[in-house]
């Protein structure tokens, strides 16, 4: 089985276009400047799927059928919902209609790529997550999700918009494209699950903290949306570059509610020496990054070297802005292995690995090997790092 990243990237273009149309429709309806801050096409396993489905209390489902069937789940954060209600002058009753307009804007992009039509049905309530997961899982519990987040000018919170093609119909739809299969989609979800497990294992070994939760997904993101994978809060961590069969930029970032919190939680230190703390955090990132990349190297029976880390303590979006610009010359869409490990209520580690778009075939090979189950991540791994962790 081979997996064609280019084909998946073409789905991502359609999703991004749908997100922009949804924002334009909302701006027209409300008169408030709107923009789509993130569109991504995501492969996620069953464990991580619920995080894309929104909060039941704020969720409206809009089914669609025809050339492609499925449903959109539109979740409104409170300030966003209040502003929409105010601007449309119809109160909360406007939200189902807004959900409908957003969904129509989105599926118009799909309809342009098909010969048939896609019909949007009236909005309906949905409140049971388990049933949703069963409905949309495409293969081995993995699901394909198109996610867009639309923001209104001057309004806190967003409208989160997840389009979930129905499993059976979507597999049929993929059947027309010889480059994709349900198994291929599941392979990418497994690649991310392996990588997230490696992150969790190495962080636990280094810090002695057992992770509370691990989530992972494989995203296809327009390069200009890459910064929006993180919020504009401060993060501390390290960014690496790998060299070998897959060139990858890999960011290991801890969200930091208060300056110094990451070092306090993770680094045993009696003397709060800032340089030592930076060095320790960089080393923690180094071991974590190496853990992910060793899993990939094992799958290929090859060696992947890791560069000296760049220590960062900055706005998360600015960190990824630099990664986006670095790849922007070469690609419109980039793949991201995205893992989140919650070490405690106050401390979360986010790992984003950006394989070079030029190495897409090798990433496909890794996904295939890992999904075959014959290349489990080695633990403890043998490190092969070029960096000194300083």
């Amino acid at each position, binding site marked *: 089985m081979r997996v064609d990243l280019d084909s998946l990237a073409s789905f991502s273009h359609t999703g991004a276009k749908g997100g922009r149309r949804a924002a334009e429709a909302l701006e027209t309806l*409300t*008169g*408030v*400047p709107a*923009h*789509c*801050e993130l569109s991504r096409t995501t492969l996620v396993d069953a464990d991580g799927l619920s995080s894309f489905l929104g909060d039941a209390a704020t969720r409206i489902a809009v089914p669609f059928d025809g050339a492609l069937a499925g449903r959109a789940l539109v979740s409104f954060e409170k300030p966003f919902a209040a502003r929409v209600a105010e*601007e449309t002058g119809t109160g909360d009753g406007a939200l189902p209609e807004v959900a409908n307009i957003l969904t129509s804007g989105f599926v118009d992009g799909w309809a342009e790529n098909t010969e048939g039509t896609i019909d949007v049905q009236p909005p309906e309530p949905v409140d049971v997550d388990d049933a949703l997961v069963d409905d949309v899982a495409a293969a081995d519990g993995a699901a394909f999700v198109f996610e867009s987040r639309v*923001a209104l*000018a*001057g309004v806190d919170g967003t409208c989160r918009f997840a389009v979930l093609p129905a499993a059976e119909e979507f597999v049929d739809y993929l059947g027309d494209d010889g480059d994709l299969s349900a198994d291929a989609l599941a392979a990418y979800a497994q690649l991310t699950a392996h990588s997230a497990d490696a992150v969790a294992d190495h962080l636990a070994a280094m810090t002695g903290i057992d992770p509370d939760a691990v989530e992972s997904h494989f995203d296809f993101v327009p*390069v*200009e*949306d*890459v*910064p*929006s994978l993180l919020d*504009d809060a*401060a993060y501390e961590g390290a*960014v690496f*570059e790998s060299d070998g069969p897959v*060139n990858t*930029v890999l960011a290991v970032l801890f969200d930091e509610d208060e300056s110094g919190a990451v070092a306090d939680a993770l680094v045993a230190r009696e003397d709060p020496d800032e340089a030592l703390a930076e060095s320790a955090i960089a080393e923690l990132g180094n071991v974590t990054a190496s853990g992910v990349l060793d899993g990939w190297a094992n799958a290929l029976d090859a060696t992947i070297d890791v*560069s*000296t880390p*760049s220590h*960062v*303590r*900055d*706005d*998360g*979006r*600015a*960190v*990824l*802005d*630099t*990664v*986006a*610009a*670095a*790849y*922007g*010359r070469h690609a*419109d869409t980039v793949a991201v292995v995205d893992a989140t490990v919650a070490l405690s209520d106050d401390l979360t580690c986010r790992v984003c690995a950006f394989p*070079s778009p030029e190495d897409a075939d090798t990433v496909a090979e890794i996904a295939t090997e890992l999904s075959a189950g014959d290349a489990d991540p080695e633990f403890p791994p043998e490190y092969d790092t070029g960096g000194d962790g300083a």
Partner: protein
Amino acid sequence: MSSEAQKARVSVADWRVTDGEDTLVTSGLGSCVAVAVYDADAAVGGLLHAMLPAAPSPAEKPAKYVDSGLDEMLAAMYRRGADPENVAAKLVGGSAMLDISVGEAIGDRNVDAAERALADADVPLLASETGGSTGRSVTFSPASGDVRIDRVDGVDVI
């Protein structure tokens, strides 16, 4: 519909033009640059958040690039009533946060491209804060020309 002053967000690889008391905001500038151009008399301004210095021909998404993005944004400002003889610019961003080989020195090249593109368009560059190794967010008020720069280590207004 809303009539009060609004704060509109400008995404990466995008620009937006506004007038009156509205402000334009873009966040998370790393190696990207923000180019703020305004005609204070007409209270018309635009903010570009560009990723790369020079557009290929043809450019599928002009706002991704400093040169083609600035061309598009200036044309939109002039259609909105800005006077080409009365516009001025401020420039922010182009930092070097990461020591990675891919996209090397992209921040410096973005700054150079912005200075060159503004000169080619006869738009004077009044102030800038560029380079360094920190991220920045920008809030731009076209009516005053003020550009507020937020970093993790402080705030400046140029």
